[in-house]
């Protein structure tokens, strides 16, 4: 049973429905199933999606915006857009690919609205260092800060590709689908991004 709003709504991401059917033929993605349930009016399924994806999304946005508040607002907007898109969703791709496609668009729209790259200073209250004492360096926070700055300064495509690969553990193919690019291009962005981060590390040590 669709809600009145969903019956009228046009999903934000209507132009995107990645087609990698061979990956999903033999396995059922529980998040995709949940989004289909949302389309049928099951709000508990939406709550489950929010609980499952809030941390990955907030941290993805946080690495790009350096602001907890902004990251939370963006993540919230992604969930609202997911809800809007639910009636038209077809699980032809891995759910994570779909989510991060919407997330990246949300981030880019946010930048366009702000007309500037997000380089706001980090509110110290919200910057949570979790020191790892197994690290060989004396100051984990120092490395974190240097890499954070270097990551911010990367071109958006290199940063997104790196985060999707390492933070969100998407495959090269999934990143390519999510970013609407070829796998070779994604590999190139990741290679260049890593090179820039390594350079930042070498300058630090």
């Amino acid at each position, binding site marked *: 049973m669709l809600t009145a*709003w969903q019956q009228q709504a046009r999903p934000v991401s209507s132009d995107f429905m990645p087609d990698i059917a061979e990956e999903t033929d033999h396995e059922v993605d529980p998040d995709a199933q949940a989004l289909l349930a949302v389309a049928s009016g099951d709000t508990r399924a939406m709550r489950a999606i929010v609980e499952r994806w809030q941390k990955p999304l907030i941290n993805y946005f946080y690495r790009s915006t350096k602001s907890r508040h902004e990251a939370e607002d963006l993540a919230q907007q992604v969930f609202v857009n997911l809800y809007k898109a639910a009636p038209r969703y077809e699980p032809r791709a891995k759910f994570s690919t779909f989510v991060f496609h919407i997330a990246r668009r949300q981030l880019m729209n946010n930048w366009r609205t702000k007309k500037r790259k997000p380089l706001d200073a980090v509110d110290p209250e919200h910057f949570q260092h979790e020191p790892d004492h197994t690290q060989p360096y004396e100051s984990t926070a120092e490395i974190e800060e240097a890499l954070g700055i270097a990551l911010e300064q990367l071109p958006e495509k290199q940063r997104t590709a790196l985060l999707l690969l390492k933070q969100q553990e998407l495959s090269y193919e999934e990143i390519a689908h999510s970013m609407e690019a070829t796998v070779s291009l994604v590999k190139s962005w990741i290679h260049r991004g890593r090179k820039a981060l390594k350079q930042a590390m070498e300058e630090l040590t």
Partner: protein
Amino acid sequence: MNKKHHSHEDSIDQFLAHQPIEPRDDFTDRVMHSIEVLEQGVPEEPVVEFSGWRRVALWATGIAAALVLAFGLSLSLEQPPSAPASDSTITLSAEDRALLFGDTRTQDTASADTDYAAMEDLLLMADQLAMLDTLDTDPDWAISELLDTQTL
């Protein structure tokens, strides 16, 4: 050198994989609330947050506006109540008017009486309208009835 290179690689991987932000406890509820608002068709109020120097600038503007307002108010209070009458105007006191025209009321009292009468008429009309509205009467009849009452 090779060991150092590998440790850099490890640090980068650890940094990228690390998710430093734990969502707030009420995050899910906030999202579900936005979705409920969306379903009800009520436009969500945009959240405007001012931080750092913007907040300071906002406060400064507010204080400046309050000072200007207070200064303007104090100036207006210092003004004399009315400008002195010019030499060519002859002002009659209440006693003079009574002596010359037999009018025992001052001009101000007469004006106040007129205003009071007009106000009374208005209140009466308002009462009548309210009463007619309560009785759910025919509007044409109500208007004619009202006009008749006023004529009387």
